[in-house]
């Protein structure tokens, strides 16, 4: 360990393969989360620009609030789903 250079070890390869065994699942969930977040963002911006006084006054929990809450809920659901599926795997 002191002074001698070591070659790249072969043990790295199994680690990388292990990292990608559920690669499809993790990337699909990541894309799903990104898409959900962008959809939420687009929706709240759109609803803010389209909001009329009558519409806003009528609602306590407006569409923007519901969109934000949904995004937060999905964040929890997707993390829980991933943890559960990894435990089952």
């Amino acid at each position, binding site marked *: 360990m*002191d002074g*001698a250079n070591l070659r790249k070890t072969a043990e*790295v390869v199994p*680690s*990388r393969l292990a990292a990608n065994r559920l690669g499809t699942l993790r990337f699909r969930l990541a894309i799903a989360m990104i898409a959900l977040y962008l959809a939420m963002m687009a929706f709240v911006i759109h609803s803010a620009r389209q909001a009329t006084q009558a519409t806003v006054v009528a609602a306590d929990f407006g569409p923007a609030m519901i969109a934000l809450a949904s995004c937060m809920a999905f*964040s929890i659901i997707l993390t829980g789903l991933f943890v559960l599926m990894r435990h089952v795997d």
Partner: protein
Amino acid sequence: MLLVLAIAFTVDADGSAYSAQSASQIREADLSTVVFFVVFAVLTLLISFWAARRATSSSEYLTAGSSISSGQNGLAIAGDYMSAGAFLGLSGAIYASGLDGMFLAASYLASWPIVLFLVAEPLRRLGKYSFADVLTHRLRERPTRILAGGSTLVVVSFYLVAQMVGAGELISLLFGIGYGPAVIMVGLLMIVFSTLGGMRAATWVQIIKAILMLGGSAIITTLALARFGFNVSDLLKMAASNHPNGSNIMNIRGFAQDGVATLSLGVGILFGTAGLPHILMRFFTVSDERAARVSVFYATCLIALFFSMLFVIGYGSIALLRGDPTYANASGALFGGNNLAPIHLAKAVGGSILAGFISAVAFATILAVVSGLIIAGASSAANDLVVGLSGRHLHEGMRLRISRVAAMTLGILGILLGLACEGQNVAYLLALATAIAASANFPLLLLAIYWDGLTTRGAVVGGTFGLVSSVVLTAMGPTIWSKVLGLGPAIFPYDSPALFTLPLTLFVCWLVSIAKAEPQGDWRLAQPAAAQYVE
């Protein structure tokens, strides 16, 4: 982290988010506040002395011996997000302009699934002390460690200065002492705490603080809702009737102005968390990958709970404080600044004792966050920068000594810069740190973990491009170029450049990597193989 963006909605004309309307309106410390403060300060010192007795190795000092459980780590991670910036800044943002603050909260919460899916497990499997360990399991060590170490120290330094300035202003307001003594007090406690106790002490203070913050927020939320018969709808209606913007506070307003700017901000938040060094270090403190992913799940749930309570606290502040001359002036601005909304609300619903408790918890929050920053910086200094520059790995005793010296140095630097930046609006430093994390650290991590074609040259060139471009474009943005430097119209029209810098960094990494293959041969420094990091 949330402080910088929340402050954007609460900053006064003089640039300070904590501006007092006048000296006479600066809150004098209640006895309860002082008592709780002293109790927390003594508690943190006791924890640091306890942890110091165990911190006899670099593994124990930097990563708590990887012995933190998933539940403890989940609380600690959540504690990093239940910062004074979130608690005070987010509530203040909601008080000032309504739902825009919750947009930030939802964005930060959405970043945690990204961390879990893409980074948490590989980080724990392939790294030990810093995210550079993940990069260097295939790439040449010296240039990669120098880049990662430099990027980490830049991010940590920006964060640290912003936290120290915010801490000085907050402590000064809460306890009625001067800014300078406040910064020095926080800094000295931070140095003692971090240098002695290391990661185990920082983790336990985060855990205790998270529990206290959740408990305190729950009490304020419950008491505020009780005023409206636990009817959230009635609370919101009262808030809308009190606020000059009326029912518009139920909608996003500020972030709806410019879609591209909002998208860029969102990209920075979404991917920035997965590149913040002091967050990534949390995954080295647990025993294995399973604990890493479970801790992220716990953290996500706790952060969501906290943000939900902040929703009630923010709107409850509008409903109960606006128009009350005890807490707000004629224009509706709270005495001491809108960021003190939760503390004023605590006093309104729970009296001085609850307000004093919450104030002291805010102090503990600051201490926990800055100690985590210090340790992340110290780890990177010892494991990345020193190793990269010297070309030699450190033996155990030297690594521990350098880590402690680096922690002390960063602490002193934080105090000096905090004193030098008194009265200045340094919130942009947090935005800059997030931009660097999203534009340099995260792309490198992503490619190093999932793409076999990444070369050392590609990583170094791409990472440097991400670091420089994020700094330059943020500096040329409206906040720094126009408001801080006063150089006229901004050259780059957006405060957050992540929408542009992140994909560009990925492209540069890819382009340089495919242009020239990695040279074969022995290039690694003497070190244990990557597989040995999985204990």
